[in-house]
């Protein structure tokens, strides 16, 4: 049982989140985009755990479970979409699927 200041925990969550965000914005390969999204979700979960740790309440962990569920569902659908994308466009480039432009 460590005694970590809450700010440091949140700071770590922020750093991880921002790294994931940068990945989402930069990568063209859709697998890497999804991967970065997982990083972001994980960082959000970390923030809840830190908060729950700070107040000694189980609610933070409950919310982490929800995020976990959501991430699992998201990644399964997302990867199915990756398969479809590759089947239709013969590439993993997200910019290839840009027909819904104005």
């Amino acid at each position, binding site marked *: 049982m460590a005694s970590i200041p809450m700010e440091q925990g949140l700071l770590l969550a922020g750093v991880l989140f921002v790294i994931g965000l940068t990945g989402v914005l930069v990568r063209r390969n859709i697998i890497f985009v999804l991967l970065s999204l997982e990083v972001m979700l994980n960082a959000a979960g970390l923030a809840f755990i830190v908060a729950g740790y700070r107040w000694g309440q189980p609610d933070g962990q*409950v919310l982490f479970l929800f995020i976990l569920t959501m991430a699992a569902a998201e990644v399964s659908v997302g990867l199915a979409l990756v398969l479809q994308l590759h089947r239709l466009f013969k590439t993993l480039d997200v910019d290839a699927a840009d027909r819904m432009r104005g």
Partner: protein
Amino acid sequence: MNAVYYISSVVAVVATVAAVTGLNAVHSLLYLIVSFLAVALIFFTLGAPVIAALEVIIYAGAIIVLFIFVVMILNLGDVAVEQEKRWTVGKMWIGPAFLALVLMAELVYVLFQQTVHHLPGAGPIQPQDLGATLFGPYMLGVELASMVLLAGLVGAYHLGRRRQPDETAQERQEPVDAGARR
């Protein structure tokens, strides 16, 4: 234990950066596993052993396995790495990195602007507390989460199904037509 936290933090950050910037998908996934394991350790130090276990099982286990399956199905080789090199040139990172830094700066500002600093943790949370809370006040949330999982299951099955060739051709036709009309 504090040392464990800080070392894990550094490992998590480095591994995540490596995962996000990597060129080879499988290598990136391995880095991601490392990142998730480090985060699991952090959870443990923060008094959430159940969550640490779930992190290992679901994130580092199930989700990464899904990714690896997909990478295997697509059977990407060295060509993909070359492609990644072309796609991710250095200057592309400037804009997003700037945005991310701004966001980070805002976050740091918020964190260290608070009047109360360096509060120690309140203590570990027992698994039975977690279970009682989960099936107590959050009952409805659990039900909704199950529905989300069901939807994810159905969606993944529907999307991942291999279509008949003529069906696929039809689907390809429609977006083209829609694009032409605009």
